[in-house]
């Protein structure tokens, strides 16, 4: 990128030349932006308060969407589309969920735990059995056994259906480039879309309940199933395939004996990712009345009650860990399965035997009620650290959030639009600029301008904080390998946690305020940013670093003149990633006082008269996401969330 930059430290500061050597030098690079900002400021001062678009709960688009909902409800049993397709889907999926759920609930709790442990033993031996068994036992200890089984049933149903659809599609896509090209854009859309956005349509088609929750979860968890399977099949050694064909194998024989076994490890990863994605939808799905742990969390969030959320949250995390180990253990090559049948059988039999002895319900006396002590601790923390948390909160709110929000909401809409257009044009070019502009205008047309500006404020502040923290930690890690070694496992762990977990400490520390959402998003989005920055800086070739050092650069000069410029792509990528993640989190933050679009979405599902607004707000989050993505698109190709996750796995 900047080959000159590497030598510049050695050059003494340029002596002020009396005569300019190049009289027709271009304007310094900062002039244009400064003029731009000045013009914008001038326009703002002149036109502030005019052409604002204040929020109106009864805006026409909302009412229209309400009418659509009413029409669908009225015609649910007449319209052929519903009669012959959607209703059957709903009944079928609902029926499958009921069956799975009934099956799991029919198992006495000791049997369920023991069978899971036995499966773990079979898959990977003693340690996996222990993790799986303890993980499932924790549901009881945490006092959320029944809800956990519900969540497990929903997750398994969604995963089963996802794999049923996703694996064949993935295999097909892996073997045919044409199919791959056809489905990739669809998968991209499914993955970029904030989960909130498709809850509305789900409810419209499948009504509130387990069926629509399953479908919503599937939409989220199918892309990794397809993508990773396709990748796995695609990567099978072509020589092995050729060898098989050259011996006269049919397509089916080659698929069964070469493709699938050789792709098995990666396909297991696909299954694992599908499960993890499905689990991370638990909370969101609870918004449309999915039974299970998610509803506890929603309840806790809306009451700012950490004690209610924590057991459910922990149960989800433990379920994730248990299923993860269980599934990944099956991927281990050539494990001596046979020799484990005995132990696994004994374990399972013991569990079933115990269920005749132990009470049918998990006994309350064996629960460890962490709710009240946690609440106490939170209360203590809130009062003990009141000064600190309050100060942080106030500085951020008064210093960043409020001014920015005022600025955005009191500016005329056309000024904001203009600013977005110019900014996107400069960073990413004309086409992305107009796409971004289009998205912004569409948000205005949806009647959600003001709330979108509020959400945008939160996102911007969170992104700035995320980038600052991410850069600092990333640079530190790149510079000090010891520190990096310490930080890595933490980052790994953080990236596998479902998003809502980060709301817990945020809520405990800051109560329900807008800053809570900002804090949670920063904590959520920092790990990948740190990782990208660290990798980017480490990726600067050693020879370049040595060249800079040998010409006498200080570490600071090295950082600013060599490492940052050369890691520019990675850093832009980090920014982009940070924005996408922050947006997703800020919307969830609507539940804990962030207001804005997130709140609209949530109330859309809880109050029937707000359905239209919630639906529109879901769409608006998508539009905002696309807009921010286009503005920062400068960072060429960014890895899909899958690739991000796969690297940890």
């Amino acid at each position, binding site marked *: 990128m900047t080959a000159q930059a590497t030598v510049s430290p050695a050059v003494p500061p340029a002596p002020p030349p009396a005569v300019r050597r190049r009289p027709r030098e271009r304007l310094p690079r900062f002039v244009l932006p400064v003029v731009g900002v000045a013009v914008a400021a001038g326009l703002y001062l002149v036109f502030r308060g005019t052409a604002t678009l204040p929020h109106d709960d009864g805006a026409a688009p909302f009412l229209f969407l309400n009418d659509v909902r009413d029409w669908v409800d009225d015609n649910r049993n007449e319209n052929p589309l519903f009669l012959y397709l959607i209703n059957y889907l709903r009944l079928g999926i609902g029926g499958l969920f009921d069956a799975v759920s009934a099956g799991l609930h029919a198992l006495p709790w000791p049997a369920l735990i023991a069978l899971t442990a036995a499966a773990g033993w079979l898959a990977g031996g003693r340690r996996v059995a222990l993790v799986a068994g303890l993980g499932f036992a924790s549901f009881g200890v945490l006092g959320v056994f029944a809800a956990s089984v519900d969540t497990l049933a929903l997750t398994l149903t969604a995963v089963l259906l996802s794999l049923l659809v996703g694996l064949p599609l993935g295999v097909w896509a892996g073997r045919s480039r044409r199919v791959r090209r056809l489905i990739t854009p669809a998968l991209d859309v499914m993955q970029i879309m904030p989960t909130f956005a498709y809850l509305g349509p789900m409810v419209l088609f499948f009504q509130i309940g387990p069926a629509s929750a399953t479908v919503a979860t599937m939409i989220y968890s199918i892309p990794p199933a397809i993508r990773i399977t396709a990748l796995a099949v695609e990567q099978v050694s072509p*020589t*092995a395939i*050729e*060898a098989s*064909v*050259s011996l006269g194998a049919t397509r089916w024989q080659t698929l069964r004996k*070469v493709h699938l076994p*050789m792709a098995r490890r990666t396909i297991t990863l696909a299954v694992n990712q599908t499960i993890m994605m499905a689990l991370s939808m638990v909370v969101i799905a609870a918004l449309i009345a999915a039974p299970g742990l998610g509803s506890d969390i929603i309840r806790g969030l809306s009451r700012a009650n950490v004690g209610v959320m924590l057991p459910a949250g922990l149960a989800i995390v433990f379920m994730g860990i248990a299923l993860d180990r269980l599934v990944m253990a099956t991927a281990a090559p*050539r494990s001596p399965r046979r020799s484990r049948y005995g132990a696994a059988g004994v374990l399972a039999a013991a569990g079933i035997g115990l269920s005749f002895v132990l009470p049918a319900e998990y006994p309350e006396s064996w629960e460890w009620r962490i709710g009240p002590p946690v609440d106490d601790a939170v209360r203590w923390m809130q009062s003990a650290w009141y000064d600190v948390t309050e100060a942080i909160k106030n500085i951020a709110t008064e210093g960043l959030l409020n001014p920015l929000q005022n600025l955005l909401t009191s500016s005329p809409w056309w000024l904001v639009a203009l600013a977005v257009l110019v900014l996107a044009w400069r960073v990413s070019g004309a086409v992305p600029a107009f796409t971004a502009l289009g998205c912004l205008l569409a948000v205005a047309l949806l009647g959600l301008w003001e709330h979108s500006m509020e959400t945008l404020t939160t996102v911007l502040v969170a992104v700035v904080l995320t980038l600052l923290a991410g850069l600092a930690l990333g640079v530190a890690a790149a510079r000090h390998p010891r520190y990096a070694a310490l930080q890595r496992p933490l980052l790994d762990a953080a990236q596998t946690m479902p998003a809502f977990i980060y709301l817990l400490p945020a809520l405990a520390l800051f109560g329900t305020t807008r800053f809570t959402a900002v804090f949670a998003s920063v904590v959520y989005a920092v790990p990948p940013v740190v990782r990208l920055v660290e990798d980017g800086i480490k990726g600067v070739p050693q020879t370049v670093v040595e060249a800079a050092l040998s010409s006498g650069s200080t570490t600071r000069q090295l950082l600013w003149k060599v490492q940052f410029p050369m890691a520019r792509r990675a850093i832009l990528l980090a920014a982009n990633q940070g924005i996408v993640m922050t947006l997703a989190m800020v919307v969830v933050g609507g539940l804990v006082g962030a207001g804005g679009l997130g709140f609209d979405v949530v109330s859309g599902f809880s109050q029937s008269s707000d359905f239209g607004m919630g639906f529109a707000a879901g769409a608006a989050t998508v539009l905002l996401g696309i807009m921010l993505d286009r503005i920062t698109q400068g960072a060429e190709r960014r890895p899909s969330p899958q690739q991000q996750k796969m690297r940890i796995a």
Partner: protein
Amino acid sequence: MLEETVEAARQVPDPAARPSGSTAIDVRGLWKIFGPRADRVLNGPDIHLDPNALLEKTGCTAAVRDVTFEVRAGEMFVVMGLSGSGKSTLVRCLTRLIEPTAGKIHIAGEDVCSASPAALRELRRHRVSMVFQHFGLLPHRRVVDNVAYGLEIQRVPKAERHRRAEEILSLVGLAGHAQSYPDQLSGGMQQRVGLARALAVDPQVMLFDEPFSALDPLIRRDMQAEVVRLHRDVGKTMVFITHDLSEALKLGQRIAIMRDGAVVQLGTPEELVAAPADDYVADFVRDVAKSEVLSLRWICRTPAENEHLDGPVMNAETIIKDAVPAVLGSARPIRVVEGGSLVGVVDRLDILAAMAARPERPRPGSRSRS
């Protein structure tokens, strides 16, 4: 009179017209063009462009250009050429692992190009098998199951295919490794497994696509010896691809040299070394120790007026190097005979010149085929 005989001995007979046993593989006018609208390119005028121009103009690569040859049953036929000359494509066309663009292929009399998918599978299952440069073993299967793979595809019962696999494994010297996994074996051993897999289906024809290129030189030499031994013992027809001249000379009964998709010369090792058809082939064989490949036929000359024709007698087929003791042990020139009649004489100077590989002497019949 004697001069004519000498010339006649040096004439390289047309390989295609050679007296031969039955034909195992018969390839006529084979073309393979990669790229869009291959058919149109084949029948259009652009096809005579050189490869780069063709690629630029049409987006197509003519990987195999109008190749014709025959392989006799039981023969070891080597195809050699530089990287990208189309060897792999050619050998894959033989069983339509790559679909040829034009031409005729007959294997043991059966028309491969018009074979139905089922007939083609039968051909691949029972008659032709292949060994690959990068082995293509299945890492999730034990060695024995890798070797038995071809039989498994044919639905041979497990006990029987394992028995057969073990048999083949001991044939290639891997008797103790049936239960290992491929990644527990060295490269050379892995290729033995590849070899065993190809042998296990008891094919009539074996195709080798640079099977030893990925191995280090010592192991490669072992494997070459192994293939020579197998060829002798099991008597299969073999088509062997290589880019290594010494390998080609060591193994091949006949060698086809390819360049840019076309066969530029086809002949015995001796013919190639003694009479390269063009500079490309000449370049290839420049560094060959001629005295180790050529026979006396190529250096014998008409005796001079006063020369004594009472020296030792040697057959025209004798490799030059082997004639050294005789020529050193006698002051008289060696009489070179073929079929009982004298075809010429060779003295110390001739032999020395051949061993020093001076280009003037040992290229008698430098004819160029157009």
